[in-house]
């Protein structure tokens, strides 16, 4: 098995709302896959279907080689799940939570548990209800990592957390990245960029793209063309050019299929002589915004 998560035309409909439409995902084993998208894009719905918390309207999903609708206790022994809106047993102390969960997992590692408690600086004798939001997330994550899960699923784990806690969580996760596949949903792209190996962009229930982060960053460029005189905008620019704009003698656009030679040749073919051409690499956040903008404008 080389695929940790695979979905085929997965769809979910809530009355008149299509929360997910023909979602085709492929998360390789060992990947750190970030499913990004604006609020309401369908990320949580997709994760709930993957975790068998919710049934799909159509299509199918496989998680660790098992149909997601058949995920039961045995499969959950090797899956860790943490969600921003998960209801924890708040009456328990952190140590009671860990002690309670220990017998559920045959692979629970007491040493790893101790390491995680130290790493996250968890107060063992305090009740969860008295912990800050960040501490609760760390406690939930520690309790989901201590048994060496093959798959770690995180639904918006960084929402509302201060930067220090986010760093701690990310480090905690990255320490496990070698032995697990990590599937994380977020709209916080700054953090995702620092550790994701793959990224999928979900919008209005549809997957806009899904690929390795390195190739994504490689194919997106901010392009700035400087002319001697204001040039006319092409009537039919290439499909990979986004947000074409002009200002005096400068044309700017975003190239979503950047290749140094090909893109340069394409520019020359359309505009002829250009005084100056600048290709600037883009952050994941900029790519995300560039992708989100046309969809919102059309909506």
């Amino acid at each position, binding site marked *: 098995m080389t695929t940790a998560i695979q979905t085929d035309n997965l769809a979910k409909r809530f009355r008149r709302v299509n929360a997910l439409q023909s979602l085709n995902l492929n998360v390789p084993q060992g990947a750190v896959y970030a499913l990004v998208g604006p609020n309401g894009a369908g990320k949580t719905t997709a994760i709930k279907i993957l975790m068998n918390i919710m049934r799909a309207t159509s299509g199918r999903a496989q998680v660790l080689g098992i149909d997601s609708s058949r995920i039961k*206790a*045995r499969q*959950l022994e090797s899956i860790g799940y943490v969600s921003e809106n*998960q209801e924890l*047993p708040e*009456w328990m102390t952190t140590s*009671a939570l860990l002690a309670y969960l220990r017998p*559920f997992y045959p692979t629970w590692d007491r040493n790893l548990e101790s390491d995680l408690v130290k790493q996250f600086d968890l107060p063992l004798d305090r009740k969860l209800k008295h912990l800050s939001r960040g501490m609760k997330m760390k406690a939930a994550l520690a309790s989901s990592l201590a048994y060496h899960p093959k798959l770690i699923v995180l639904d918006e784990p960084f929402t509302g957390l201060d930067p220090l806690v986010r760093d701690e969580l990310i480090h905690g996760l990255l320490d496990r990245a070698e032995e697990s596949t990590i599937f994380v949903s977020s709209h916080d792209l700054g953090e995702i960029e620092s550790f994701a190996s793959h990224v999928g962009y979900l919008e209005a229930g549809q997957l806009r793209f899904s690929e390795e982060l390195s190739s994504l960053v490689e194919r997106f460029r901010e392009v700035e063309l400087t002319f001697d005189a204001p040039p006319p905008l092409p009537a039919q620019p290439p499909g990979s050019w986004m947000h074409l704009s002009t200002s005096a003698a400068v044309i700017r656009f975003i190239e979503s299929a950047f290749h140094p030679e090909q893109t340069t040749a394409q520019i020359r073919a359309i505009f002829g002589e250009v005084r100056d051409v600048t290709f600037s690499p883009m952050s994941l956040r900029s790519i995300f915004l560039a992708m989100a903008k046309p969809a919102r404008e059309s909506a």
Partner: protein
Amino acid sequence: MNQIWNIFRKDVRHHRPEIAVSLALTVAFAWVEVREWDHQGMMAFGGGAFLYQLLSELIVPLLPASWMLLIVRAVHGESLVGDRQFWVTRPYDWKNLLAAKTLFVLAFVNLPLFIMDAFLLAKAGFRPSAYLSGLLWMQLLWILMLLIPTAALAAVTAGIGQMLLALFLVVLYMIAMSASSGAVPNSGFSSDVAPVYFLLVIGMALAVIFLQYSSRKATVSRWMIAGLAPVFALIMIFAPYRTLIAREFPISSNGQLPLHVAMLPSRAPAPEYAVNMGNSIPLRLPLSLSGLPSDSFVELKGVILTLTNSQGARWDSGWQGRDMLLFPSEKTANIEVRLGQEDFEHMKSSPVNIRLLLAFTLLRDKNQRQFVVPNGGFAFPDLGLCSVQTNSWSHLVPRNLVCRLPLRRPSFLLITTQTAQSTCPLPKNQTPPVSGETVWEFFHNDSEPADPGISPVKILGLSLSNTNPSGRSDPGICPGTPLTLSNPEEAGKNRLEVQLDNVSLADYQQSSAPLTTESH
């Protein structure tokens, strides 16, 4: 097993306050119960009598309420409604989760109840080991009638607020059903439909619990529970009561029921004595009785009155339940049936034909023996441990027996005596009883092997009476009073039809006149 134990221990830790309250209420119940047997409650407290009275009144509903709370809290500990609970994505095996919750209920509801019941039996003078099956039966009744339905409601609610709302709706529905059942003809008499309701509730509750624990389909489960409401209403309205009753009480043919019943003529009461109960008029139908063998008696279970007048109008009372014993010594009996004022006025305008159907259970006396009430506490055959109650505060009230019964009232027990044989001293100015007048108490109980209830010790005040309006109903039971005991057995169930044509309905209107002025 490891998982079951782990969840169970977690629940015990989490619900310690509720467990403590429930156990405290169990102890309080046992304490109050024992004091009530000896009528020590009020005396023991003096100034705190009010508090004791409050406790003894509240403890009966509070104890089951505490069990319900325990179940609800345990089920909601791993709520089955919603998808945000942490446990949903943990490797819980639903069978283990259900088993852990069951273990919790058995440990903190059933076991304390069982121990308390055994203690109460021993305290009342009965050996608990001799009543093991009855004690287990009582547990089963609680499980079926309260614990499982409560667990089903808890399984489809997310919190205490939702649970209280669900309970409120259930109570509201039961009140509405109870209120509307009076409007459904025949439904009050036939008991054949009750097991159908019971089985539906238990079946649905078990199905909901299974469905929720196995797949958490809360919406489907809620609809399943809500679906019971119209089903019950439809059963109540459309159940073939008459057919069921006719099957249970076939028409007596070839003397199956050795009883001859005829309707006696009556005379209209004077206007000032004619009873009018708001919008309904009570009719009193006098019957003559004969033919009942000396070793038999009958229990009148139900009646149906049909009136037709010469103008073709018809009125039917539908089957109405009755609970009247008729012995061979009784030659007459009165049946009371009410009809609306408007129907009465309409029907009495011309001569009517009266048709009365009577449903009887024939009982044949068996195992007759004599028993003389001894002094002090004593074992009463087939009943329990009894003593003569002394009414030191009133000489006017005849003395009677107070008995402690293990688990249940007797199946079939008839206790009779002659009023003249009572050894109780006569209050001043009271005329001695007429010789030959019989008083009785009859026990007929189908609850095998135990009556439902919290306590296994049933307290029974035994006083004898008869249905003769001119008789002295309760001569009292005192040490030395000879009693005749027997264990009647059911010898058949039949209907008898009695008809009287061309009579004036007004003649049968109930009169409030004293017996001496009733006839004009």
